[in-house]
Each structure stands twice: as C-alpha cells, then as structure tokens.
C-alpha cells in the first residue's frame, strides 16, 4: 500500500530576501497593523522541508462504525494493526492485515497461528466463531474521500 502524497498547503509565508535588514532594525515598524491581519508576513526563510505521510490499514469503519484508527488493535496480539505482529520486525507489508468473510480483521500471522492451532478442518474466526474463510478483497475509502483504493487481502 503506497502512502498517500503529502498534503500541500498554499504558501502563506513570504520570502524576505528583499528585506534583509528587517531583523536588525526593530525600531522600524512594518505596516502589518494596518493590514488588520488579513495577511501575516513572517520573516522566515524556508530552506527545506520534509513531507510526512501517515498510513493506516483502514480497518476502522469496517470492524465497527467509529472512526478511530488509533485505538484499533488486533484482538489476538492486542497490539495496533499498524504495529507489528508478534515475531515480526517491521510493520506494514511484513505485518499485513487480513479480513475474514465475516469481516473481522487480524494480523495475518496472528490469525494464521490460531487457525493452525485449532487442528480442525473447519477453523473458526477468533471473534465470532463462524467458520473462517479469508475474505477476497475489500475497498477502503481514504480519509479525504479523494478516491477509492483497494487492499488485497
């Protein structure tokens, strides 16, 4: 799953290249007060910036209706979906989240260990005890509802 592109903000700050002495002359008032705050001039020069993106598995809203990704944990290992399954070093692709036909989500490693440990031809979902079948695919709507992306499960 690719991280979404960083959100862009329209630049509100102005380069002060043409006004290099503004810091060294506190006595000289700018006319910002007369602008009544419509446009704040920051005497800051942006040298570089880092884009930061946040990703989630988009499990919430699927398991239940509240929209709080932060507290969503895999019920088997009780750690966040976005974290690592036990014994896995890295989150993300190495700790994928899978859904059953019953729409309950788990770390792949967690539910696999459970299914094997049941030693049965008809293993069941940890949450609802229905016969477990891997769900084929699901569609998530991302936060900004800009489009839909599908997650292979």
């Amino acid at each position, binding site marked *: 799953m690719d991280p979404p592109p960083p959100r862009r903000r329209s630049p509100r700050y102005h380069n002060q290249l043409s006004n290099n002495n503004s810091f060294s002359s506190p006595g000289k008032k700018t006319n910002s007060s007369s602008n009544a705050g419509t446009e704040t001039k920051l005497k800051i020069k942006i040298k570089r910036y880092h884009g930061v993106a946040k990703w989630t598995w988009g499990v919430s809203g699927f398991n239940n209706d509240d929209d709080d990704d932060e507290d969503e944990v895999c019920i088997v290992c009780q750690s966040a979906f976005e974290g690592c399954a*036990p014994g896995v070093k890295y989150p993300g692709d190495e700790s994928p989240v899978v859904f059953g036909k019953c729409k309950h989500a788990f770390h792949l490693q967690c539910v696999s*260990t459970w299914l094997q*440990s049941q030693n049965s031809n008809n293993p069941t979902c940890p949450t609802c*005890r229905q016969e477990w079948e891997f769900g084929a695919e699901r569609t998530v709507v991302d936060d900004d509802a800009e489009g839909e992306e599908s997650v292979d499960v």
Partner: protein
Amino acid sequence: MAANGRVKKEISIICKTDPTSGVIATTAGDDLSIPGKPGWRHLIGTIQGPSGTPYENGVFDVDILIDGEYPFAPPKMKFITKIWHPNVSSATGAICLDILKDQWTPALTIKTAMMSLQALLCSPEPNDPQDAQVAKMYLENKPEFDRTAKFWVEQYASPKSDTSKEDAVGRVCEMGFDKESARKALEKHKWDEQAAVNDLLGM
C-alpha cells in the same frame, strides 16, 4: 512465545483493582516466571462470590497458569479454594467450563475467563458436571445443595478476620513453633492450620 506483549498487557490490567468486576489477580510469589519454562506465567486470581447465590460473601482463589501456547490455548485455571459446585471438582478444584477447553478463542482474555468463572458460580450446569456427586445433589435436593455450598463457603472461602488469624497463630505456636514461622506457614496455606502445621513439620 507467541505474544509476550499481550501477556504483559493483560497482567497489568488484571492485577489492577477493578471494584466493578469482582475479579482480580496477583502474581504468585515474588516472581511471575517459572524456572525452566520461559514465557510461562503463574498468577493467583481472586473471585468474589456473586450475591444472590450460595457463594455470596465468599472469596475464591483460582490458580492461573499461562503457558507458552497462550493466547492460542486457554489459560489453565483451577480453584485453589474448595468449593461445592457441580462444575468444579470438590476434591481437586478442576473446572469444567467450555471456554477453558474447546470453546476458547484468542479473543478472550484472562479477565474475561475469570468473569466467566464468576458467571458459572451464578448459573451451574448440572447436566455437564465435573463433580457427579455435587451435580446429583443439585438436581435431586436443591435445598441440601444450597446448605452444603454455603457451609463450604463459611468453612473455606470466608476471609479470616484479624483476630481469628491471631488465634490461629497462637494455636500453632502452642505446638512449639515460633510466632514468625507459624504466621508465614499459615499465610502460605491460606490459614489452613492443619496444612500449615504439616508444612512446619516438613510433612
């Protein structure tokens, strides 16, 4: 060890006082871990007897062993405190409860399992007994069952008052043991004088 993080989290939750649930656990002894069994954990759970049942006012200790398979296998639980209940062995404390056997799922926790035990005290299942003798009495003579269960609570599951503890220490001391070791042995054996004396005698 499949889910050490989960076990740690669970232990910190279950060892916290939660007056609404009536269940709590403490670590057995000083050290949680068991020598030679990495990842295993030993806890002592305490369940308040539910009101409106013969177990009311009783306090029941439960031995909880979390093995390396947990949470993919249920925690091993049995009553330490003797209890008269169709689904608990009156001799060994072994428990017959489906979620502690084939109906376990990793969605359950130590806490929910203990709360299920508490629910079992409210609604015995005499048709799926662990102790056939108790179940027979439950089905054939309910008043006698209630009396017996209550008597067992008074006998084994009632928290000892401080004065009765002092009396017990005094009686053990009269047998020729010093106060300190008498108290220690009594605490270790949940104020069962006979067991404490046997322990002191090295039996």
